[in-house]
């Protein structure tokens, strides 16, 4: 680790930063008026155009794979820092034609809810814990990165009203966390989407400003290209060397576990796609983002490191080869940019990190409200009869839980800060937390035979084998390491993802394959007079084995065999208690019946006939029913029938669907060019008086 720097930047930089933050806070708070209920707060009312979501994902994606950590690796290893931005395409078919339509059409509000529908409440409970750990961990990584980005700008100590304070990383993080909590708590998803939209542009601008200034500083493109050693110009790291940055480990950690984790189980990102007006718009947002925005983002986040390396190789360079990698972005930006411009660049970076973190806090709150609070209220029979009052109360809970997850995110920074750089901390986090959920999601939506016993066994047995991998990286992980050396301080940070994924897959498949035999055993247990004693013994034995693994009580191979035995005992116990119908529990929830899922979403047969988009004026109607009413001729133009789904939107395209809502075609009338909507629908969409709308038949 290099030397920590302080006091970078001038007063004009601070002025720019303060103005930027005030602007972003006010901007986010403005959009809080679009939150009428938890659907708006979490999913932005499912109304936005693809380009708004694609741009808002830039800010979230860029900062979560941030300037700080990629500039660090760019400085240490060159252009191969871009690897992780250019390896996300392999799972896109599964995402845009599998997972995305399933989560939209099944109307699940969170991934754990999918687990309950597809498997059972226990699977949902375990998935909730894993999902919250994942999200809070991500928040922690975000705070750590923010702290490391801001610390170089601050003095070593400050005096305030005569009191002397040392400026520390944790102190900086606490202050930043307090500011971050503000606009998410009051703004909700719509605020996040729109602030991210602005910040996406700002980030790209800031990144390319640094790149342009940097290239100019080192004497032009040719000079930059020729200064860098050949291995610094390559797009890939060395296949399996060194332990802290190698291709094969990062392929499995990021390209496989990370990409699937980010696309399939990151509620923050999934909620963005769910905020698009349709599945097809979600597909456009995802593909545009991966094809065009990620390559641009790779340059934006890594270039300060490449420039820093080039400058460090110039004789008499102001940048030392031993500079702290995690500070290199700030050091380079300060060196090459003018005062004020540097302030803008740093403000864009920090604001983008705030976007990521706030998105994740919003997602954690969504998981809490939907997977803990709602089921708990049902169980305690405390659901209010008045739907509006219940929604208001849940919205307050969402805001309070946002604050609590912010605090947890700050606490979790402490263990992450023990890693040499943010990159390694993030790599370890992904390798460890994503595999169990990723395997469960993937097998769940791809394989109808995957059942509750298998998913719970893979969660518990898989985690036990992962713990053993952490205790005994050699030989358990080294067997899969493909030549990667083990760093005793942080063994197999990246390639550990392959081992963790494989053990979860192994347990899951093994249990499915022996399911018929397990059913026979469970049948015999149920017929036995001592069935309760047998099951309690199985539960006690499973718990004892998990505890033995957790405290590493026996030798490695004994523990491996016990973990496998425990997996089957967990499967038997689950099978004993859980009622599961393989036909009912998979309808509309696997890739094999997406068409059925779409029909279930609509509630009747899909109208696939192709109609036109029409431009129309709106009027308020007296009744409060949820349908909207077009003329007979307008419905013919749209090829629509009564009961079909319709999307009504302000015709000004630059609003990107902000003023819009979904509804159902009601009884037609005879006034061509007019649509009648209710007062509630008007309040949800906030249409402007006299403005033309467009109407599309959805399905």
């Amino acid at each position: 680790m290099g030397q920590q720097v302080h006091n970078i930047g001038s007063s004009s930089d601070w002025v720019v930063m303060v103005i930027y933050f005030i602007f972003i806070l006010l901007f986010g708070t403005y959009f809080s008026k679009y939150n009428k209920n938890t659907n708006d707060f979490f999913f932005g009312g499912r109304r936005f155009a693809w380009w708004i979501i694609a741009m808002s994902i830039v800010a979230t994606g860029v900062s979560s794979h941030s300037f700080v950590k990629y500039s660090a690796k760019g400085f240490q290893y060159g252009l191969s820092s871009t690897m992780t931005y250019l390896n996300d395409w392999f799972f896109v078919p599964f995402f845009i034609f599998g997972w995305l339509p399933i989560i939209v059409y099944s109307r699940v509000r969170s991934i754990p809810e999918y687990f309950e529908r597809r498997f059972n409440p226990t699977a949902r409970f375990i998935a909730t814990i894993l999902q919250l750990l994942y999200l809070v961990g991500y928040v922690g990584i975000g705070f750590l990165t923010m702290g490391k980005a801001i610390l170089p700008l601050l003095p070593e100590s400050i005096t305030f009203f005569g009191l002397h304070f040392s400026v520390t990383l944790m102190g900086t993080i606490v202050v930043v966390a307090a500011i971050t909590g503000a606009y998410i708590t009051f703004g909700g998803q719509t605020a996040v989407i729109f602030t991210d939209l602005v910040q996406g542009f700002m980030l790209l601008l800031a990144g390319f400003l640094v790149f342009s200034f940097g290239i100019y500083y080192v004497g032009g493109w040719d000079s930059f290209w020729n200064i860098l050693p050949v291995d610094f110009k390559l797009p890939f790291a060395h296949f399996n060397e060194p332990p802290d940055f190698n291709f094969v480990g990062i392929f499995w950690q990021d390209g496989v576990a990370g990409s699937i984790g980010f696309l399939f189980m990151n509620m923050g990102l999934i909620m963005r796609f769910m905020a698009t007006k349709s599945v097809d718009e979600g597909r456009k947002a995802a593909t545009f983002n991966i094809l065009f925005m990620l390559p641009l983002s790779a340059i934006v986040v890594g270039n300060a490191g490449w420039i820093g390396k080039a400058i460090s190789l110039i004789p008499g360079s102001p940048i030392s080869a031993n500079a702290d990698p995690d500070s290199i972005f700030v050091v380079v930006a300060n060196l090459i940019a003018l005062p004020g411009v540097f302030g803008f660049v740093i403000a864009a970076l920090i604001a983008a990190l705030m976007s990521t973190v706030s998105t994740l806090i919003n997602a954690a709150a969504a998981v809490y409200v939907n997977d803990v609070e709602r089921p708990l209220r049902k169980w305690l029979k405390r659901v209010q009869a008045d739907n509006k009052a219940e929604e208001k109360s849940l919205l307050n809970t969402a805001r309070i839980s946002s604050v609590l997850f912010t605090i947890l995110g700050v606490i979790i920074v402490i263990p992450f800060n023990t890693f040499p750089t943010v990159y390694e901390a993030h790599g370890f986090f992904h390798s460890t937390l994503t595999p169990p959920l990723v395997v469960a999601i993937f097998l769940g939506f791809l394989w109808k035979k995957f059942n509750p016993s298998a998913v719970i066994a893979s969660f518990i047995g898989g985690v036990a084998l992962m713990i053993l991998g952490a205790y005994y990286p050699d030989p358990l992980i080294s067997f899969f390491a493909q030549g990667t050396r083990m760093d005793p301080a942080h063994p197999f940070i990246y390639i550990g993802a392959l081992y963790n994924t494989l053990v979860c897959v192994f347990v899951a498949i093994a249990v499915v394959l022996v399911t018929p035999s397990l059913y026979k055993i469970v049948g015999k247990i149920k017929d036995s007079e001592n069935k309760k004693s047998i099951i309690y013994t199985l539960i006690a034995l499973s718990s004892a084995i998990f505890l033995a693994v957790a405290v590493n009580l026996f030798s490695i191979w004994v523990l491996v065999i016990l973990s496998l035995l425990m997996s089957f005992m967990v499967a038997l116990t689950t099978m004993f208690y859980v009622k599961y119908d393989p036909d009912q529990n998979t309808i509309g929830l696997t890739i094999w019946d997406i068409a059925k899922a779409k029909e279930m979403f609509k509630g009747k047969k899909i109208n696939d006939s192709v109609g036109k988009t029409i431009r129309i004026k709106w009027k308020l109607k007296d009744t409060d029913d949820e349908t909207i009413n077009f003329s007979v001729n307008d419905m013919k133009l749209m090829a629509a029938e009564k009961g079909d789904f319709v999307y009504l939107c302000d015709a000004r395209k630059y609003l990107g669907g902000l003023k819009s809502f979904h509804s159902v075609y009601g009884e037609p009338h005879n006034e061509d060019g007019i649509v009648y909507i209710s007062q509630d629908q008007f309040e949800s969409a906030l249409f402007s008086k006299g403005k033309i709308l467009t109407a599309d038949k959805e399905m």
Partner: protein
Amino acid sequence: MPSFFNTWLPFIYLYGVGGVFFVAGLIITTKSKALDLSKKRHRFWFYVLIGGFFYFMIMHAIWVVAALYW
């Protein structure tokens, strides 16, 4: 000059192993009719998916050559 382990081996591994996942995705989505090639819109997406794979592959190949020889 960097070794094969630094240049083409990662390239082959990325598009070989990654390619297996990608092709598996295409096969499963088409076989399940989630990607229904009888629909015009889905055919468009099918071409986007294939094009995207080669877009990244060609980008990386040119990049390796540029780093080594330009």
